[in-house]
């Protein structure tokens, strides 16, 4: 029990450190721009604006938001305080809507889409990979090339292909949005059904991409384990295959869990781009509108939120990993 406590608190400390680093990066990167960052951002934001007083207003707004007159340390304190109060300022492209409000309306779409899709894809992928390693022959011959092909497609490529086949050609699913464009979000049956129908294509495009990568990883892990000495020894002892297989897959599974913790950031990144293809009302599309609208406060806030999401997910997976695999706890706390 003491080992667990040590492992968990170690992970928690690490989580907090990465959190601070994420805040720092989000804070420093825009300030590392050569020249006067406020002037540059203002200039980028006001492209096409003719009113001189408007430009001046934008400049003053940014100067206040960044607090550029203050010493850098005070600026960081102001920034952190604003973040913890959920105050990300006002959006430029959707003025006078607060950035926090835009994020609040899009984050749930992303959360509800991506994490279930990644988990489902991970589960199916690992099952298929393990089966391929165990059954070999025909199954493996079909699954492997398919997985290699799928995992080579970028997430947005898979999204476009699914969209064209099932959305445009067959017309089974709508091609864009999170719900019917003629609806107002409410709790009626029609609306829920519309959301479910719109959910399918983005969901499966993320799932299929995840399956490909995971199946390949699990297959090589399982093949490696199947050739390990303990498998041969237990066969030699006459332990039933069924029993040995459970050991094998448990061992092969663990690196896959650790792998998920490491790769979840990349997967979320890919899925965000897939969201753009489907114009799904999540954070991915928000980045696009922010970039298109030259909306600096929105970009900064969205990237911070995505980082926090990924950090949180990684932390949870690592905690789970510690529970599933007792060895890691002892190895890391020694």
């Amino acid at each position, binding site marked *: 029990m003491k080992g667990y406590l040590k492992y968990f608190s170690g992970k928690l400390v690490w989580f907090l450190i990465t959190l601070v680093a994420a805040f720092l990066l989000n804070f420093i990167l*825009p300030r590392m721009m050569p020249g006067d960052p406020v002037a540059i951002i203002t200039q980028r934001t006001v492209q096409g604006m003719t009113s001189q007083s408007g430009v001046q207003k934008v400049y003053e707004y940014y100067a206040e938001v960044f607090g550029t007159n203050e010493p850098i340390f005070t600026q960081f304190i102001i920034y952190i305080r604003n973040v913890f109060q959920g105050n990300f300022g006002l959006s430029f492209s959707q003025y006078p809507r607060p950035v926090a409000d835009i994020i609040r309306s899009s984050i749930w779409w992303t959360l509800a889409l991506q994490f279930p899709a990644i988990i489902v894809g991970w589960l199916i992928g690992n099952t298929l990979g393990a089966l391929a390693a165990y059954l070999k022959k025909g199954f493996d011959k079909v699954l492997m090339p398919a997985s290699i092909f799928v995992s080579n497609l970028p997430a947005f490529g898979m999204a*476009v292909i699914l969209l064209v086949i099932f*959305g445009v050609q067959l017309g089974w699913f709508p091609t864009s949005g999170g719900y019917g464009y003629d609806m107002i979000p409410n709790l009626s049956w029609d609306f829920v059904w519309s959301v479910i129908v719109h959910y399918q294509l983005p969901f499966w495009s993320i799932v299929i991409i995840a399956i490909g990568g995971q199946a390949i990883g699990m297959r090589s892990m399982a093949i490696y384990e199947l050739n390990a000495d303990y498998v041969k020894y237990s066969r030699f002892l006459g332990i039933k295959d069924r029993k040995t297989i459970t050991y094998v897959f448990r061992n092969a599974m663990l690196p896959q869990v650790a792998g998920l913790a490491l790769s979840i950031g990349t997967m979320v990144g890919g899925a965000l781009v897939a969201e753009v293809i489907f114009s799904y009302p999540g954070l991915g599309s928000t980045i696009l509108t922010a970039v298109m609208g030259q909306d600096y406060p929105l970009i900064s806030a969205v*990237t911070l939120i995505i980082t926090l999401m990924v950090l949180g997910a990684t932390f949870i997976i690592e905690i789970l990993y510690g529970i599933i695999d007792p060895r890691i706890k002892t190895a890391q706390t020694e």
Partner: protein
Amino acid sequence: MKHTIREVFRSPKFVVGFILLIAMLLIVILYPLIIPDEPLEIIALGTFFEPGIYVNVFDSIGARTYTLNLNDAQERRIASRLGEQERLDMQEWLVSYGIPEEEIDLEDTEKLLELWENNYDPTLRFQGMTSAKKKYFARLDASLENLLSTEGVIIAVENVETNELEQTRVINQSDFVNINQVPNVRVLPLGTDNFGRDMLTELISALGTSLQIGFVAGLIATMIGLTLGLVAGYIGGWVDDIIMFITNLFTVIPSLVLLVLISYSIGQEQRGAVTVAIVIGFTSWVWTTRAVRAQVISLRHRDHVNLSKLSGHSIPHIIVADILPYIASYVVMAFILQISSAILAEASLSILGLGPKTTEVPTLGLMMNWAMIYSAHIMGKWWAYFPVIVVIALVSFSMNLMNTGLDQVFNPALRD
């Protein structure tokens, strides 16, 4: 060394991937030599022209004509003009007239027209048929008669002095031109994009740029990763702690987020293809660092390294002579993977509108971005996006095949 290379080229997977990559490189290099068009030149007035051979109409009127008597020419002509809707309307009239539906074959143009000619009567009016509909059928009949006429088309030129049209020639229905004798023929194998650019030329140029971006970014990422990994793994101690701390940080912070933040901070004007490549390179070195460090740690206390140390060799010498050769295969594999993931990263960035600036060179991601912005996928203009996805998939497929091949050569446990 020689032996290793021979071994590598015996792996079928590596060879297939390698040939694919070389083929793509050759196309990128040779195509502009044969067809020296500017990739971003706008040639078409309008968006998304279908793939095909475009023959200049003016020139073909002036070209020498040949008479070919083909039996099915008339039928094809009608079939191409008689749309799905017109056929259905004809069927509707005929069914109301009293012809059983199963006798009408919509696909068989000749029989359909015959049925129509024999039965259509403009004076008839069925129950429930509006007069608008009746007039529509009369118009349809007239246009069908037009189609069926066998006379040619008169070409006339306006006389500058009298302002009158003067007949210069008659083009008969059986006149043909030899496409080789028409001076202006443009083949657009992949049609044009939303701006009216030749898709194929643009795509090949984009492939070249994307490969360059991948190469530059991969090189930067591998160099950083290799250096940090070697230093962390070999020197160890607090140097290792610091490097690993940074590496772990950048592993959990999604690289897409960093790319978005940095690219936006740089700004559209400063974002050339090379800048994007450098930014990608600087955000994707973590995996190489981890892999190299792990390898170096396992090598650090091997006998030959200890021997080298005892002989008084300097640290750089030991790293170059005693450690690098052992991890070279890993580094090459990491480099290949970096190239393909950098190409994907560029594409992702461009789709988010943060790719290289759009006025200089096309990249695969930018082409994808344009196709998506102009909703080519929803309008069914497959040639604007599908070839791009195929090319991206081919690049990353070839790189991954090479990588799997190398992996199997260097890790015998993974061989099938």
